[in-house]
């Protein structure tokens, strides 16, 4: 599949003046407004506890915001959590089939879908394994494959690679941007790693903590597919530096 499968139609996901104040009085988010469309991969970087995850929970409908509104089609939403959240009693195959199963797709069809996405994330040969015998990176791949079965137009990533080692994380970053290129979803990624953000995204948003505000926005100019060596490119480093500078400015 080529780059032309990515087409932009703004508005797959739009936040409109989102505010979130928890019952205990903590103001997690204030006046968050931005949108993204298919072919866009937007990453929100911010310090821990700035409400990044809350933003995704609101986008997915798991949490109701106290102000503002979200425009999103939640029918086939891709959403991976910090944990792989695999069901330990199901094999890789069974786990990957789960969402299709919940959406009432017949067994034959979902077996096929699962086979496809398992290949896509490079887990072929591990279909019969239970999660307890998989490494952290493989569990995450399995979790990605599970969401991919729905061919999601919008894909939310909540710091999915925070718990894996650096090398695996870089591999997963490369694979994620390949998936993005192939599948052409609108991606919203949350992380506190700047190089991860810049490497994968078309756009990086910097968020401050308490209250969570979008304080800066960067366009990332590199073409897809992005080679691993991009990380050593001076332009890449400079962009990372700028994001880092903004992030520090608002770090409490």
């Amino acid at each position: 599949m080529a780059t032309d499968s990515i087409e932009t139609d703004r508005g797959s996901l739009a936040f409109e003046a989102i505010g979130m104040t928890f019952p205990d009085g903590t103001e997690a988010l204030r006046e968050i407004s931005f949108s993204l469309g298919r072919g866009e991969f937007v990453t929100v970087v911010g310090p821990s506890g700035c409400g990044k995850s809350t933003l995704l929970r609101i986008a997915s409908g798991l949490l109701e915001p106290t102000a503002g509104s979200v425009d999103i089609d939640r029918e086939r939403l891709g959403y991976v959590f910090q944990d792989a959240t695999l069901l330990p009693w199901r094999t890789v195959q069974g786990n990957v089939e789960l969402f299709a199963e919940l959406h009432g797709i017949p067994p034959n069809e979902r077996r096929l879908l699962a086979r496809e996405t398992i290949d896509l994330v490079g887990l072929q040969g591990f279909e019969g394994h239970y999660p307890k015998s998989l490494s952290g990176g493989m569990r995450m791949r399995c979790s990605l494959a599970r969401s991919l079965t729905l061919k999601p137009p919008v894909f939310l990533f909540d710091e999915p690679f925070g718990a894996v080692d650096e090398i695996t994380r870089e591999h997963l970053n490369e694979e994620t941007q390949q998936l993005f290129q192939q599948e052409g979803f609108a991606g919203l990624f949350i992380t506190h790693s700047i190089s991860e953000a810049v490497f994968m995204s078309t756009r990086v948003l910097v968020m401050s903590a308490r209250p969570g505000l979008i304080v800066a926005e960067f366009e990332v100019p590199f073409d897809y597919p992005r080679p691993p060596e991009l990380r050593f490119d001076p332009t890449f480093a400079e962009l990372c530096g700028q994001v880092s500078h903004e992030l520090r400015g608002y770090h409490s």
Partner: protein
Amino acid sequence: MNDLNEHPSAGASHRTGEPSRLRRALGITLPPVVVLGGLVAGWYYVTYGVLTETRRFLLRPVHKVIEVGFLDGGNRSDALEALWSSTRVAFIGLVIAICIGFSLAILMSQAKFFERAIFPYVVVIQAMPILAIVPLIVFWFGTGQKARVIVCVIISLFPLVANTLHGLQSAEQGMHDLFTLHHANRSVRLRKLMFPAALPFVFTGLRISAGLSVIGAIVGDFFFARGDIGIGQLLRRHANQLNGEELLAAVILSSGLGVTVFLLFGVIRDRAVGRWHEATSGGS
């Protein structure tokens, strides 16, 4: 996306080479066998070394117990009949306790209200000394099979309810979120998430309850002292008649029943959840 630079932990153990099956089996069975040998030796020592000739009836030697208690035709058929009677009662009691226990746990898992309303009474049933209510059961239900089964149900209910409920509530919030995101209804959530998550806990409860049900069957029989002769009445009769050998044989038989049930449910659990369950979490 083909570079698999990681390997599952399970794959690694093959290369280092596992100890042979025989050695592993020996490693598991040998220690308890050694202890058994020690116990038998100690028993003989007490019988012949500690007790004087006149008091030797208090602890008959092992071979006599086996000879009189198990090899003597009349005694053996009495014992086996009693064993069968008690096993039947314990089994029926356990099945009923499972039905009631699961239903209560599922009900309580569906709404906090039910949990708050019901759980205290399950604790009350657990806290009631069984001996205190045996007379009441006799008063209401007589001493037949029904009364005995009721004793078993009462004594074995709590671990089933508590473990099943705990298990149903053990699925992580993140997993519940997944099911919420994909619009799973109550019954799908129960069948595909809460039941499987509860299984290891259920088996832990079953294992405890099965043992308790056996105790219930024997205790009930012992105190009713009437009707179908089970292990309880056998124990009472031999104790009253100072039949040392038969009494010890009955004790061995009753613990044998308890151990068998315990092992049986362990095997069933390993078959059912051993492939995916990590023994460190959940039921032990």
